[in-house]
């Protein structure tokens, strides 16, 4: 039961972190719960489909289907998150004014919640499919009774949800004045990490060179195998021995999001002045 719980927990950790950050970013936005819920439900449905067609996906692109599939999902999610951050920045002043008026933090305001719902759905779909496959395998192998499988899965899911919720609560502790800045920065880092991961999958598929691989190795300091390393890898894209291509992708994505956001913020200020 505990072995099942641990693996399910590991597989759902990434989506839990994504949902936690998005919940915080959309704090106070009307309809947030409904959209995030919709994203999770869609993601679960998608994960089951992906798991059911795992063999087909794997066979695509001369056996490199999984790599391209992950690249596409991660790339799309990074794009949507990046776009959301730019949107948040361009509406930052309005939100600050609203905050003054109502005294309530409205981080993303009426941010494109449907877009964030899609991001939630993609995160659940990608990692959830692996969890579904794993649990399916445990059921097939008949090594554990059905009750133990259900209990283990529930424990793992619960653990993941707890981490996501703790992250969300932790972010809400950030003063209302800074919540907007903190969550938009976190989202930008999350998107950059996803883009770097996507680049890693392209290297794995043999489509791109790693250039210098690895560029460094800091696994002695903080390994991606450790819980903290795993959390940071999801949250800010920490890799203990990344290829130069991943580092470049990370930097380029971050620069593009922040650069675009800054430019839009400036024009918005000038326009209102």
């Amino acid at each position, binding site marked *: 039961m505990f*072995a099942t719980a641990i*693996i399910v927990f590991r597989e759902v950790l990434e989506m839990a972190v994504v949902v936690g950050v998005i919940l915080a970013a959309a704090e106070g936005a009307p309809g947030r719960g409904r959209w995030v819920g919709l994203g999770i439900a869609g993601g679960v449905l998608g994960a089951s489909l992906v798991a059911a067609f*795992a*063999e087909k996906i*794997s*066979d695509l692109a001369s*056996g*490199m289907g*999984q*790599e391209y599939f992950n690249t596409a999902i991660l790339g799309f999610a990074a794009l949507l998150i990046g776009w959301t951050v730019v949107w948040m920045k361009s509406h930052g002043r309005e939100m600050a004014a609203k905050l003054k008026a109502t005294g309530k933090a409205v981080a993303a305001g009426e941010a494109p919640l449907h877009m964030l719902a899609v991001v939630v759905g993609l995160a659940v779909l990608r990692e959830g499919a*692996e969890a579904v*496959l*794993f649990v*399916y*395998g*445990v059921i*097939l*192998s008949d090594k554990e009774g059905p009750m133990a499988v259900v209990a283990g899965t529930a424990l793992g899911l619960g653990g993941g949800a707890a981490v996501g919720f703790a992250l969300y609560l932790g972010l809400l502790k950030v003063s209302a004045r800074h919540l907007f800045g903190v969550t938009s920065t976190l989202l930008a880092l999350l998107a950059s990490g996803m883009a770097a991961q996507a680049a*890693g999958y392209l290297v*794995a*598929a*043999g489509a791109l060179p790693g250039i210098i*691989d690895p560029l460094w190795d800091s*696994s002695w300091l903080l*390994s*991606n*195998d450790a819980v903290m390393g795993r959390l940071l890898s999801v949250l800010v894209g920490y*890799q*203990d*021995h990344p*290829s130069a291509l991943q580092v470049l992708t990370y930097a380029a994505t971050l620069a593009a999001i922040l650069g675009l956001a800054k430019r839009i913020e400036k024009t918005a200020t000038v326009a209102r002045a």
Partner: protein
Amino acid sequence: MRPALLCALLIGLASPALAEEPNTYHLSLKDHHFVPDMIEAPADSKLVLIIKNEDPTPDEFDSTQLRREKVIPPGKEITVLVGPLKPGSYKFVGEYHEDTAKGVLLVK
């Protein structure tokens, strides 16, 4: 000989891509163990790992050291490209049966 077979044979002869790459290593997952569970490979070369899952349940080839993660459906074969690598030992596991499915890639 059937024409289709002949065609396949001719294409096979003409296309070097279909020939097995150098430094290709075959492994299988059997009763949730890697067979073999140790591979020796040269440093600074591209390596091709072909892993067949002979178990009736899915597994996931996973190695943080090699930075690879790939699902192996039951009865299927996956290809994992790695390297060029520095000398050292790189651990990998079948993530869904981590207690038994353990292996190491020794790069010399």
